[in-house]
């Protein structure tokens, strides 16, 4: 079964970050914004054209393109 990513989270549901895939620059940028291992994330809203989506992380609202959200892998338990 494919790993669950941030993009798969339905609105209003929380997940816990397991790891970030993708190139180092993106990894670093996301980690600096608080998407580190163990961080709680909640999917909030989707833009009218389906992309980007809005997430709640580390106490603030973060907008990510779906392409980038797919590289944030969540812990299986969540």
């Amino acid at each position: 079964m494919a790993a669950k990513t941030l993009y798969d989270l339905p609105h209003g549901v929380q997940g816990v970050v397991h790891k970030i895939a993708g190139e180092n620059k993106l990894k670093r940028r996301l980690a600096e914004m608080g998407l580190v291992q163990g961080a709680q994330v909640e999917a909030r809203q989707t833009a009218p054209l389906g992309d980007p989506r809005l997430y709640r992380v580390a106490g603030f609202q973060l907008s990510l393109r779906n392409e980038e959200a797919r590289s944030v892998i969540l812990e299986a338990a969540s």
Partner: protein
Amino acid sequence: MSDSAQKTVTIALAGNPNCGKSALFNRLTGARQRVANFSGVTVARKEGETLHKGWLLRFIDLPGTYSLSTLTMEEKLAQEYLLGNEYDLILNIMDAGNLERNLFLTTQLIESGRPRVYVLNMADEARRKGITINLPLLSTLLDGPALMTVARTGEGVDALLDLLVEEAENKLQRRGVSVRYDSHLEEAIGRLTQHIQTHLGKQYQQQARWRAIQLLEGNQGLPGAPPPNEHLAIQGEAERYHLAAMHGDPAEVLLANGRYGFIRGLLKETVQQQFFAVGTLTLGERLDGILLHRLLGLPLFFLSMWVMFQTTFTLGKVPAEVINNLFSWLTEQAAELLAPSLLREVLTGGILPGVGGVAVFLPTIILLFLFIALFEDSGYMARVAFLTDRAMHIIGLHGKAFIPLLMGFGCNVPAIMATRAMEHPRDRLVTILINPFMSCSARLPVFVLFAAAFFPEHEGSVLFSIYMIGIVTALLSALLLKKTLFKGISEPFVLELPPYRLPTLRSVVRHMWEKAVEFLKKMGGVILAGSIIIWFLQAYPREVTLPWNPEERLAAIEMQLPEGKERQEAIKALQAEQSAAEQEGRYLGQLGRWIQPIFAPLGFDWRASIALLTGFVAKEVVISTLGVLYHSGNKEQLQEELLQEKLTHAMPRHVAYGFMLFTLLYIPCLATIAVIRRETMSWRWPLLSASFGLSLAWLSAWTVHTVGGLL
């Protein structure tokens, strides 16, 4: 107070975007500010100073950044500045209601070991969220005094000034806490620190740990970094490689994990939040539910844009009319009061109409920026980027480019000024360069005139087609630029949506004032010079030899026609013909004839060529020039219907459409060229914009002429 000049302390303001840093900077410095540039780059930095208790406090407002990495230009500049020795103290500003992410930058500042003061700003928002912070404990753990402020109201600002002076009096102690990472990282840092301490000069000792971490993070090419040392660089890369191999993540991510671990521990000890009942949404979340709604979001956005343009252009009309009248009045006065002289001619024929023609845009620009300031300060701007990002992504830009492009329909000058909100220099340049293709309101009168003259039954569709061609050209040019000049990996779109905030009058007025001053400065320079040059070209040489003698023809008219209406009209027609013939003989006319071969393949005669040439000053001028040259009257009493009729005799329909296309696409007006020069700090981009526009304009008008000729 006489020795106060010696007691100076320089304070660098560092903080995340949206933490109220600029508002606090304005509170601390009042009106005593100036804008400087970081050496060699286009990012502006603000400096300001204030006197407090015998000390001169100099404040440097660094760009707002989420971290000190070298991913974006702002971060790089902030990092370079903080690594240097031009300042004495770091003032780290945080949003008290959003400490977790704001503290990330702080963990990096801690590692610098430099003296620090912490400000937890927006204390009122934090209080409303039910957040209480143990300040003394936080001060201890972060190793620097901390206090709470509300920059919007000025709460805590005096206490902050006292604290800064106190720190300065206490000789600005260096601070020495550090963030502890897990064992593998610490071992690597230890090895690199030791290398720096044993092999490098004394000036690198104090920040050895910070420099070691910089090496581990892969931040290279920073000034003040250790001198090129193969060994150190190789060792740094080796450590990075080992860490990545061992943990499956690059060292910079491991360090970020460690920093957030430190932050969570810190917050657990110092911050308490009384949570609201589960299931209730905050006001901001409810607003987002409406403004970002999947069906309502875009219509509401377009509605707000419509309101912006409507208000700008209806409200702006009144003061624009006043400015227009003022300049006409000044012109009349100058004509009346001054003796006939060169000065009078330059004033009434060049400077006043030229500068006046641009000054009428001032109210529009101020009003547009009133809305931009409201959108920006309220937090809606970031939401616009969120709403439009998908559409902009198609052309390789992101949501933040949308507003400047839209503003271009009003006037390209404020639109290009508004690109400053964009963080990536490449994206910003692309947005600036495609902006002139968004048809500004100055071009509209030209289109209206031609559409009415040549396409009387289809004016609406013709206008619409012109605007659409402009938009499509802009989009295709963006794609082209992204594929050629600005190749490279597109930046990830990681955007914070800040909480909604009520804009303060103070900051909105300041914003508008700054833009107005900028605009006026530009008028004083480029526009003034441009109007004088154009005036000179159409006024010299004074004596033009005509192929026929006007006095003879006047005498002939007077002989043939009896006194009365008919004779009057004949004389008028003669005068108009004479003035047009004279125009043809002046430098501008000569220039028109000289460049006419370039325009001949497009079907334009020398008059149309000159009209386009003068349109460079401002696009509306195209019409007044055509009016003069087709002698349908002089500039003051333009008889539009007569001009329309003359035009229809002068060129076929398809050539007219080509002329409209040319007006749409060719060289940006003088004011736009000037603002592109200002914003990009180089002549390269305005020149590129001009030549690209001209080539496109020529090609499309040529295509229309050629294809139209075959039909």
